[in-house]
């Protein structure tokens, strides 16, 4: 009875903790990137950013909460099946909520991407292509821009007006001049929030996965339930990794790899190769591809679980 209470409490606490930490960090970072005009209207801006942060972090928070609760159950090698079954049901439920909320993410993210990023006025910025300074209004349309391209025989040029395109992340100079990429600009504040080259592929893969997961979300209730249940079942079948070795930390590494797989699989499905391979499947059934694969993998993993020795046997041979 104690387990029936303690496992869900621990899971919910961890879920809320990860969700709160992720959302708060996201809000603070996103808010500081906004222009001062938008910061003045802070109440509506912060609420929009909070909703965005919540939707971005809900799936990772569910996965992480599941992982740490599971590891806690198996840590001492004395797990009871009831705990895991209860956890699986709980994860499926919250995952269903997460999947249910997913359509909102698209709408909120559109609003967030429209928000203006800070480009300080009168501050020298440098990119691999050029040095440049804004003189005048730092809004969407700048005042004049003093520009020095990193090209042989280039000279200072004063461009009368430039337009900052937040969608493309480029500075459009008009008069037929090539636009300047604002990504990778040093000296400006936007650069402070760009990750280094090493994390780029990790982030890209995870975000692509999240977006693809979201796109794989079916519009109807029945496929949504299928995806949430399949994900819950898949997580439950990952017991295989959670208790694969007698070393819990190694199991954590394996489980994190398996969780990354949950997010990377949808990316593969929406890739050109994935689309080509799945072209023969009728459109009606496409919403069930992802849950189907998850179900298949979870059956394989459950098969593996059956072959694993009981955790009671871990103590056999140990130097007790």
């Amino acid at each position: 009875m104690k387990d029936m209470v303690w496992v869900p409490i621990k899971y919910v606490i961890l879920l809320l903790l990860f969700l709160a930490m992720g959302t708060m960090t996201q809000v603070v970072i996103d808010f500081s990137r906004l222009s001062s005009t938008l910061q003045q209207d802070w109440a509506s801006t912060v609420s929009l950013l909070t909703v965005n942060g919540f939707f971005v972090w809900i799936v990772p928070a569910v996965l992480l909460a599941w992982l740490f609760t599971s590891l806690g159950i198996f840590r001492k090698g004395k797990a009871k099946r009831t705990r895991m079954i209860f956890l699986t049901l709980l994860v499926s439920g919250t995952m269903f909520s997460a999947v249910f909320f997913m359509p909102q993410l698209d709408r909120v993210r559109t609003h967030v991407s429209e928000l203006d990023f800070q480009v300080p006025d009168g501050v020298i910025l440098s990119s691999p292509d050029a040095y440049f300074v804004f003189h005048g209004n730092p809004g969407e349309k700048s005042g004049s821009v003093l520009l020095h391209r990193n090209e042989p025989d280039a000279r200072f040029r004063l461009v009368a007006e430039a337009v900052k395109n937040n969608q493309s992340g480029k500075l459009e100079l008009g008069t037929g001049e090539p636009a300047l990429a604002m990504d990778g600009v040093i000296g400006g504040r936007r650069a402070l929030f760009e990750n280094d080259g090493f994390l780029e592929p990790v982030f890209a893969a995870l975000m692509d996965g999240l977006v693809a997961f979201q796109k794989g979300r079916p519009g109807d209730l029945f496929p949504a339930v299928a995806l949430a249940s399949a994900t819950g079942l898949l997580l439950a079948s990952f017991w295989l990794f959670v208790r694969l070795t007698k070393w819990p930390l190694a199991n954590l590494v394996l489980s994190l790899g398996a969780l990354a797989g949950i997010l990377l699989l949808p990316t593969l499905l929406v890739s050109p190769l994935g689309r080509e391979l799945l072209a023969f499947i009728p459109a009606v059934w496409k919403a069930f591809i992802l849950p189907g694969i998850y179900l298949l993998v979870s059956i394989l993993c459950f098969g593996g679980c059956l072959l694993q020795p009981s955790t009671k046997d871990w103590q056999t041979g140990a130097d007790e």
Partner: protein
Amino acid sequence: MKGVTRKILLPLVAAHAVAILLLLLYNIIAGDKAILAEFAWSWIFQAVLVSWMDFFIPITITGFLLGLSVFINNAELRSLLKGERSFVRITGKTVVLVLLISVMFVILNAFVYGSARQQRDTLHDRSVRAHAFLLEAQDLAKRGLFSESAVSVRKALLLAPNYLAAAEMQVRLSEKSGESSSGGHAESKHIGKENEDSMDPKERIRSSLIYEDNLKLAREYFERSDYYSALYFIRKAEGLTERVDDALVDLRTEVEMQIRKKGVSAKDHAAKKLSETKQKAVVDYLQNGRPIEAYHELIRVEALARGEEGAEAEHAIVEELTAAIDSLIINQADVGKEYDPRELVLPGRPFVDPDFCRWMPEVLAQLERTTFFREEAETLRAEASGSGVMFVNREEDGIREYLYAAAVLEGRFNQYLVAPEIIVVGKAGKVVSHRVSAYGKIVGSNLMLKSIGRLEPERIEEVRVLEGEVPQDTRNVVRLHQSPEVIRSLSLSRFGYQDMSVPELFSLISVVPSAGYDVVPLQTVLLGYLLQVLSLPSLCFFAIAWGWANRSRYLTWPVLLTGLMVVALPVLVFILMKLYQYIGNCLNASILMMGGFENSLVVLVVIQTVQLVASLVYLAGQTTD
């Protein structure tokens, strides 16, 4: 050190030892191929140190995680614990150890890391340049230009004193020129001695003394009809006083008259031409503040004195003069002095005209006050890889003067800017003036923009005004409001502040806004350094507690899969640490932008302290069950 502490420490030391060994092997096998053999080990040391510092936190975390979760043998541990249930009671020494490690790392990071990176890069730069000088020397020697070749070899040896190939080349050149010396500085010492011998010691001492001595020397030379020497000492005397001495004025008038008479009364055509050229150089040009023309005429004087005329002869003299100047620069560099053309003592051989030898240093000194020889900049540009810079040089009443350079080159004593460009932008965002030059040389707090070539003094590179009006008298000089050190730092920070040490960051923090840069990126990097004092211990405590909580209670010996995980764990820790640093940097920057440096420091210290306390509480909550 006994018991559990040793058990925890050994895997930590082993993790660092393995990491250092791997980094060493990597740098030996796949290191920088351009490094000269004499710098190889020094470069490897710096490269390993830099990489080790880069990976220090993930290695330490991995060491703790592995040590506490998999490498402690259960039976042995139980005997060490002796029935103690509280884990934290037996890890008290480890806590102290973590604090010591953190302090050591922060000190290394703040004061050693940046300079290690710079030294590593300097060794690369010196290797590349020394090798280039040697190639140049070999090329010059093939063309029969042995004295110029010797100078290039000397430059290579200055950059890399134990560069074997350059030393061998120097010996070969010495043998060719009949010199017996084989030491690194033998040639310069020889020339120096020769120079000393060619001067009257009394004259050397007195010439640098007081007004009366110079005046007396001027009179002596006048009486001996050596009018150019007399004029030389008159000028020296003039430089030592601000008052108008009638005696000196009279003597000068008489000397100049005699010089003109001498030209007219010369016996043959050659003597007359020589006399007239000297008169032009010294009286007409130098006396009237036209050193470039005076330089050119003096070269002609020497050519005429040798009985040679024409561009080829003059080029030969310029090359000999350049070699003498380079020797002076090298000799003065050896004793840590800044190059001063006044100290140039031209030897009697190969120069033949005494007035040329006496006046040339004076001409060079005056010439280098308003212009500079661009050869050093051209050589540096060819050999070194300076990075560009742009900054606000001056800002008054909303009018900004921007300075851009394609590269900042570090000479031995001077900085040069390649293709400097100065634009003044007015209040309404309109260009007030815009000028460019081929090279700029920083002398004191001025940027000189007018340059000439030693071989082609007539090819003067002056400032070109592209827009607006700039007064003629200030056109070729820009008063710098940023120091050479700041300009250098700004060029180094072209791609971010991560490579700079804490003292360098502190030195820039007050300057960066006036140079037109946003201070927040710099402050973010600085905050990152400062907060490591708190973040590193808390990460270590979390790692200890987390490793202990997830230890392998039933593992007798790591099997294959566990062994593989031992290798995979550092990779995962590295990724997670990168993620932690990234999120930390984002948070630091966000809070900085909202609250300013001081407020943010307080807020972030509080956050980090909470994290530290949480890690200690988590550690304290661990039991030996």
